[in-house]
């Protein structure tokens, strides 16, 4: 009977293609939006990923995400360093600052002040130079941080530092070593552009040393945001984190746990999550609409033949199995097609710098959505089979 069901399905190529399209569309859209969301979440903890040397991140008790820091007193760095099992502990400062470009344009940056001694966490430079260039006076490295066009600076000398009105509508280029910016009325010198991991939300980044950050940022009593700790040889990061918490009363999280905290915080607080859920719901609704209606039409147009089969002795259970087989085939092929398309589209999106990361849950979610949509479509179309009366078909009515 399954053979008959599949031949019936494959025999009507237009509807079969429609069904496949509906399922593939659902699978693609759900997997794609989940992967896009996964990409955004991955970018939300880019700063943690950029500091692989840090086994444990130490912060204020109230910090729940890498992007919402509360600064610590400078003395906490030494308190952390004094904990048994800490091999090294370096400071990291995070802050927002507005920078004025030479043409007068103002752009907000996330300033990342790294340890002066180790320069740990500075991403590689486009020019190929090392992070040591940050040791030059007032040196900063700028990065687009997933944004685009926000680092544009005037190409021509005449448009730089003009008197009077800003020159916004002039030829622009990306900053190069030697360009200058004003941060809080302090002139800083760009020593290069880096290729940092893109951020979510996207924002321009300004890497500098901790001491330069202290000098160019508005004065605050507390400047230290995180203490990045490397564990002693053979010491488990979780145990060290617990030890630091017990000794300092600060919050200490392993890098992995801090990434999870950041994602959890985003899930709970970010409006983008709502957008992603809306997108997923629309994808499923459209998929259900297309697949459900096509499946219903297919079953309805074949109702006469289901009645003939029932008259010939096929039980309703057999007919339901037949519809189930048809739905299963469409679901399986459609999911495969959708996932394949998603991988292709993902490659293209990744190439153009969009956040896309297909993690394990994305195809799972896509498969679950297809299952749900297919079951719904099957239930929708099965109703008419269960209600049909073969005698009416015998009568030609």
């Amino acid at each position: 009977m399954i053979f008959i069901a599949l031949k019936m399905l494959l025999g009507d190529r237009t509807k079969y293609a429609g069904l496949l399209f509906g399922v593939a569309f659902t699978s693609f859209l759900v997997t794609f939006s989940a992967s896009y969301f996964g990409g955004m979440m991955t970018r939300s903890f880019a700063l943690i990923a950029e500091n692989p040397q840090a086994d444990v991140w130490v912060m204020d008790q109230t910090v729940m995400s890498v992007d919402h820091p509360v600064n610590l007193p400078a003395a906490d760095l030494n308190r952390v360093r004094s904990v048994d099992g800490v091999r090294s502990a370096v400071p990291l400062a995070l802050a927002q600052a507005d920078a004025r470009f030479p043409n007068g344009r103002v752009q907000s940056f996330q300033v990342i002040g790294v340890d002066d001694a180790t320069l740990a966490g500075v991403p590689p430079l486009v020019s190929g130079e090392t992070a040591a260039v940050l040791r030059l006076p007032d040196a900063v490295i700028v990065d687009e941080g997933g944004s685009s066009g926000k680092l544009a600076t005037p190409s021509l000398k005449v448009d730089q530092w003009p008197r009077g009105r800003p020159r916004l509508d002039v030829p622009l280029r990306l900053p190069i070593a030697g360009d200058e910016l004003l941060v809080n009325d302090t002139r800083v010198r760009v020593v290069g552009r880096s290729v940092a991991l893109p951020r979510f939300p996207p924002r321009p980044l300004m890497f500098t040393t901790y001491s330069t950050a202290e000098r160019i940022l508005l004065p605050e009593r507390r400047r230290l945001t995180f203490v990045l700790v490397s564990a002693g040889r053979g010491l488990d990061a979780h145990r060290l984190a617990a030890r630091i918490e017990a000794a300092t009363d600060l919050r200490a999280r392993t890098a992995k746990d801090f990434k999870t905290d950041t994602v959890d915080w985003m899930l709970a607080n970010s409006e983008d999550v709502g957008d992603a859920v809306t997108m997923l719901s629309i994808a499923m609704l459209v998929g259900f609409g297309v697949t459900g209606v096509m499946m219903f039409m297919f079953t309805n147009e074949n109702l006469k033949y289901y009645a003939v089969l029932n008259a010939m002795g096929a039980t309703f259970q057999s007919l339901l199995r037949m519809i189930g087989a048809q739905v299963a085939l469409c679901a399986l092929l459609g999911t495969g097609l959708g996932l394949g398309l998603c991988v292709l589209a993902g490659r293209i999106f990744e190439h153009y710098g969009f956040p896309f990361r297909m993690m394990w849950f994305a195809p799972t979610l896509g498969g679950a959505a297809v299952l749900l949509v297919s079951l719904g479509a099957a239930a929708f179309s099965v109703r008419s089979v269960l209600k049909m009366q073969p005698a009416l078909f015998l009568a030609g009515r």
Partner: protein
Amino acid sequence: MSGRTMNGPGEPTRNPPAARCHGVTKTYGRGNAAVQALRGVDLEVRAGELLMLAGPSGCGKTTLISVLAGLLQRDGGECSVLEHDYMRMSLNETTRFRKRNIGFVFQSFDLIPALTAAENVATPLLINGLKRQAALERAGALLRMMGFDDRMLRSLPAELSGGQQQRAAIARALVHDPRLIVCDEPTSALDSENGHAVMGLLRRFALGKERMLVVVTHDDRIFEFADVIARMEDGRIVRVEKTPRRVNEPQRDA
């Protein structure tokens, strides 16, 4: 008035009735919209007999064969087919009974368009649980007996002529060796020549000592193929005519 087929004096001995209905009633709808399709039908059909139900449109012929075939539950009266009363059987039991014992030839053939002729004919065998290959071989053998060649076996219904489609439909009704075959207007979609050919085929292949055929028709050109003609009017059988010459005709074992 009710009709009953009986052996008259001097007539050859006939098989006992394999299907027997007495006072069968059936009403569609309720209240003012109620239509009484059967108003107390008495009918007997014997194995080895081709019974034609004739009468004007709307007189209840199709309802009666639907009741006989277990596709429709009667409202009242008694009816047993091969000693089974559908009223005492569950829906699944009735369906299983149809699977084993009843073959159908529908008015518009109703071959499944996506299946080849051989696959269509093999369908009742597949429903009865036969393996696909065996079912296709048996279906192919039967269709070849009916004049199909290899190309036609692999043809979709849309690629066959009306007569060929009807032959495939008849083969589908026969292939699983049922005891009762019901045919609803089997010649209505065919011209006179094809109609005669199809009825000849039905008599030749479908009739057997253990098998009975009930054919609904209002095509009087094919009455000559009947053993018994039961005429219906307004939900009742008003006259039963026997055509004895058919009774003595040599029959093919089913």
